[in-house]
């Protein structure tokens, strides 16, 4: 991993169109500003991982869900 030392207000450029700025650096927390093209999604890592795990756990199979749907779908009509 590349490790760079930066002060508040300084920036890092990744490739030709991603810029990370150090907005503020106080005790224990760093505030970053991120400029990236629209096609590059930017997420907090732990939240993205959580969504990945939820999606993978949400896959359905007919066997396990039809019965449950039978009991609840009428209440949403």
């Amino acid at each position, binding site marked *: 991993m590349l490790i760079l030392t930066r002060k508040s207000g300084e920036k890092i450029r990744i490739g030709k169109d991603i810029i990370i700025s150090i907005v503020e650096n106080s005790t224990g927390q760093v505030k970053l500003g991120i400029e990236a093209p*629209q*096609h590059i999604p930017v997420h907090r890592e732990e939240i993205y991982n959580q969504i990945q795990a*939820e999606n993978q756990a*949400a896959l*359905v199979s007919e066997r396990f*869900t039809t019965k*449950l749907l039978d009991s*609840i779908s009428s209440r*949403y009509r």
Partner: protein
Amino acid sequence: MINQTVSESQTENYLHRFHSGEYAMLNGNGTEVDFNNVIHFEQGIPGFEFLSQFLIVPLFEYPPFLVLQSLEAPEVAMLVLPSRFMELGDELDVKTEDLEKIQTKDKNGFETYVILKMSSEGGKFTANTKAPVIINPAKQLGAQVILDHQALDVQHPLELT
């Protein structure tokens, strides 16, 4: 440039797999799938970043539930519910930069769905209101977006009303 079109041979392959039952999922027999209505997810969805073409299939026997199903991998199928059934309001407002992912600026020009999951205790569903799926039907574009509101949760209890 996004390639939104599905080639003839791809369609033929999908149709073959459809008729062999792979796409039928919960809808049982008589499912009519409109292959001209494929939704393109440019970024895939988290956990399935490599999949980009999805169908959103209403479950006629179980309204208002639908299935979001991958064309490339039919086993990737999730139950979804239009977000209006979640009794949430402004909390589900989608940011302008997220709307750009489906090429719309119109607050009414897209549909919002929440992905459902069987809760670990069984017998109940939870809804992922933190990361709803937004679809622009006119342009056949979709994205799963991550919202910031505190009232939202990846495992929001699905209350029966």
